[in-house]
């Protein structure tokens, strides 16, 4: 019986419990003498209470026990495997082979005395049934896989039985409690309130998950590579060693990636900030409502276009165009490479225009009317009012908005993956290719790799660095924006 069936049966028990509980509550209510006794809750609340009592404990127990069971089995495989091969980097591979062998045994329907004695025999039987097994398995794995299967079956039987028993017990308990004066509505509402709280904690759990998962992998990375070499190294050369061979250790210097990231972000901000800010000012202060109602949604279209489309645009259209243009300008030598900091920066800048303009639009309209009117009444022109009164008054908010935009630019991935290039080098020339943190995260993690090598673990260290940078910028920006908003309220 699969897990899906168990959940479906539990839900069905809940539905039946709902129906009978509501029916019983209705009978009690209709049978009671209204002058002496009144029902506390509507029959549907009794139904819901029975449904929740039948399903919730059962499903929670099911989830907890299932994860405990898989943890126990995993642990057992790990101890057995490490007792055979030692605690080396290859052990996770061996553990994977044991799991695959166990799966193959289940799918072939082999257990007890049917289990083949050697791994090669199992592999032959599996391949004739169309199941592919790894070549490097050893004989001790087959009985291990078989006994893991047996244990898993026993666990499953126990867990499923317990779950169904709990669901039935919950339903019976709820049914027996139904009284006229039972405060069913209050109990249902309390459960609903707790589930609302649980839903809001998902945000916290996600943040905790991000930090913990990346911190764990980063610590593993730093146990092999000195953190100083990572944070202050100027050479990025992770050197994918051939599988199995050791000794070749790459260099993981963050500096070239960080400088590429910041350089591209700088170019994009230099393009997006004047354009976005001026567009916001023009639409807020000069444009007629008619023009505003046409232009604003059009500019916001730029924000709705997926970044992959910008990336393709950079690669297919803008990059070759700039290369040919530079070749024509200098008479033959294309000084702008088709993948370059400049190309990536401009395209990212286009993507950021609506971000800058809508954020600064909010800030500018938050400046009180009185300051504007006062300046105009003193005889200042509109542009003088904007430059000398509104922008200075909105400055903290604009700085916050720009920080938020910059953090978008730093974390942007697809545009730089396609347009910035993969060569990690330090250069000042914006017309050459540089690479970024996000590009290297993608490079290190796409493809079939072992998850224990520093070459893949470095991606988590890069991710944590990126997360820390953007988190710092966001928190500071939100703080500034909030503080500024309070100033004028």
């Amino acid at each position, binding site marked *: 019986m699969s897990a899906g069936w168990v959940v479906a049966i539990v839900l069905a028990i809940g539905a039946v419990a709902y129906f009978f509980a509501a029916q019983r509550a209705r009978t009690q209510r209709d049978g009671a003498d209204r002058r002496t006794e009144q029902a506390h809750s509507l029959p549907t609340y009794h139904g819901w209470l029975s449904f929740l009592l039948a399903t919730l404990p059962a499903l929670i127990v099911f989830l907890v026990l299932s994860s405990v069971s898989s943890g126990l089995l995993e642990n057992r495989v790990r101890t057995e495997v490490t007792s055979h091969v030692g605690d080396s980097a290859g052990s996770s591979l061996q553990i994977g082979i044991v799991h695959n062998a166990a799966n193959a045994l289940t799918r072939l329907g082999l257990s007890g005395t049917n289990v083949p004695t050697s791994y090669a025999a199992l592999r032959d039987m599996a391949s004739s049934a169309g199941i592919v097994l790894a070549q490097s398995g050893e004989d001790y794995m087959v009985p291990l896989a078989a006994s893991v299967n047996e244990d898993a079956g026993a666990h499953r039987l126990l867990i499923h039985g317990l779950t169904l028993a709990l669901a039935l017990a919950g339903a019976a308990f709820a049914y027996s409690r139904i009284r006229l004066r039972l405060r069913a509505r209050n109990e249902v509402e309390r459960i609903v309130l707790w589930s609302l709280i649980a839903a809001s904690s998902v945000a916290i759990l996600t943040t905790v998950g991000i930090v913990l998962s990346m911190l764990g992998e980063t610590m593993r990375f730093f146990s092999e590579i000195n953190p100083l070499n990572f944070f202050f190294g100027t050479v990025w050369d992770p050197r994918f060693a051939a599988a199995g061979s050791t000794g070749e250790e790459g260099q993981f210097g963050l500096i070239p990636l960080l400088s590429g990231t910041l350089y591209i972000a700088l170019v994009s901000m230099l393009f997006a900030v004047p354009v976005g800010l001026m567009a916001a000012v023009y639409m807020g202060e000069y444009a007629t409502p008619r023009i505003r109602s046409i232009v604003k949604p059009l500019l916001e279209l730029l924000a709705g276009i997926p970044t992959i489309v910008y990336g393709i645009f950079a690669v297919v259209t803008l990059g070759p165009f700039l290369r040919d243009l530079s070749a024509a300008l200098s008479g033959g030598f294309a000084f702008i490479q088709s993948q370059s900091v400049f190309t990536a920066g401009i395209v990212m800048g286009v993507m950021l225009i609506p971000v800058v303009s809508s954020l600064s639009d909010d800030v500018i309209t938050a400046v009180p009317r009185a300051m504007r009117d006062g300046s105009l009444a003193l005889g200042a022109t509109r542009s003088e009012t904007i430059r000398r009164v509104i922008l200075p008054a909105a400055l903290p908010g604009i700085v916050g908005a720009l920080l938020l935009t910059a953090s978008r630019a730093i*974390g942007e991935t697809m545009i730089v993956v396609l347009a910035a290039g993969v060569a990690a080098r330090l250069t000042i020339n914006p017309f050459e290719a540089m690479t970024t943190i996000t590009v290297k995260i993608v490079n290190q993690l*796409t493809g079939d790799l072992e998850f224990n090598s520093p070459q893949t673990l470095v991606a988590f260290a890069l991710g944590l660095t990126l997360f820390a940078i953007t988190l710092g910028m966001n928190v500071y920006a939100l703080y500034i924006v909030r503080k500024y908003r309070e100033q004028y309220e």
Partner: protein
Amino acid sequence: MTDAALPHSAVEADAPARRDFGLKRRHAAERRFRLYGIVAIFIGLGFLAILLVSIVSKGYTAFVQTAITVPVEFSADIIDKDNERATNPRVLVSANYPVVARNAVAKALGVSPDDKAAMREVAKFVSDGNRATLRQIVMEDPSVIGTTRDVTLLAAADIDSANKGQIDLAVPQDKRKVSDRQIAWLDQLKAEGAISTPFNWGLLTFGASSRPETSGLGVALAGSLYMMAIVLLCALPIGVAASIYLEEFAKKDRFTDFIEVNINNLAAVPSIVFGLLGLAVFINFFGLPRSAPIVGGLVLTLMTLPTIIIATRAALRSVPPSIRTAALGVGASKMQMVFDHVLPLATPGILTGTIIGLARALGETAPLLLIGMVAFVADAPTSPLSPATALPVQIYMWSNEAERAFVERTSGAIIVLLAFLAIMNIAAILLRRHFERRW
């Protein structure tokens, strides 16, 4: 006395003149400033126009595909040499259908089967993907063997490009992929009316393939559909529940503040970080399969959650307090007030926010690359646990292919993606217009 009075009167005399001069300059500055604004808007709109025009002009040809309609002889000598199809049906599956297709086109062109060099070029003229078309015809009706029937065959990708005029014929023959002889054949078939360019349904139904003419978005569309369903099923209930708690029940305390800070930050975390989270938690820790839509759906759920929460809270806030007091006044409990009165009134706003969140999730690429959605998947996924790709990831994969015909498909796929996004956003706008209430 005169010493003191002289500068004074001089200032008075100068003053009007200086003000005039300043006004001119200031008005010029005003005009310049205004011009900067207009220029900024035109830069933005100009890039939008260039972007769309360049995509559409490169991609619209992907929606038609060159096809050749010729009489095909289902020769028993090629398909079933030893006449054993009654006993061994596998013969029909593994028969050499490309040769059937080649011979049919060669016959239509009048190429002699003995001319080996010409036959090789004919073989390159039609797509290898016709194997599946012909096999299906034979499998459905084995009695077709030995007869001749008109079949529409796919042309090879290079011939398709040549037919669409995308190959520069001025380039010497050995430097382009289509020979002069093949061009002549193309013109000959065109004159006979055998060449047609029907709508390219394959672009929307085929899976991954190394040949451009038989690769399509089928698997990617199915994968994206699964992921959107998972995002909708997970993010909408959780997001609405969280918003209801924060907006209607939460006391103003440290815990609530902490949740709010978290949500605001998650909205600004780079999307690739969510990919790392999915890899570390869902794949490495919980052991879910790589490349599976369920992992992608969960990652996108976490990404979309802040968007939905922010939109839902705004929608709840826009329901006037009088509704709440009226409901409480006639004896509803707080929970009844929220679920029976406030939530239904906030539904249009919540749905609008959800659709916009889904549209963003649909276009997201970076986190999906990390969880292994960059995969060569030929068959449509049957469940959320089987491997699939996603629409934007397929675009990324095609953009890495070298062949000319894939460039066209990349842009065509972008048009499909943008069309989906446009439909979703228009639906959101219409929903808002139709149900918007002013209190």
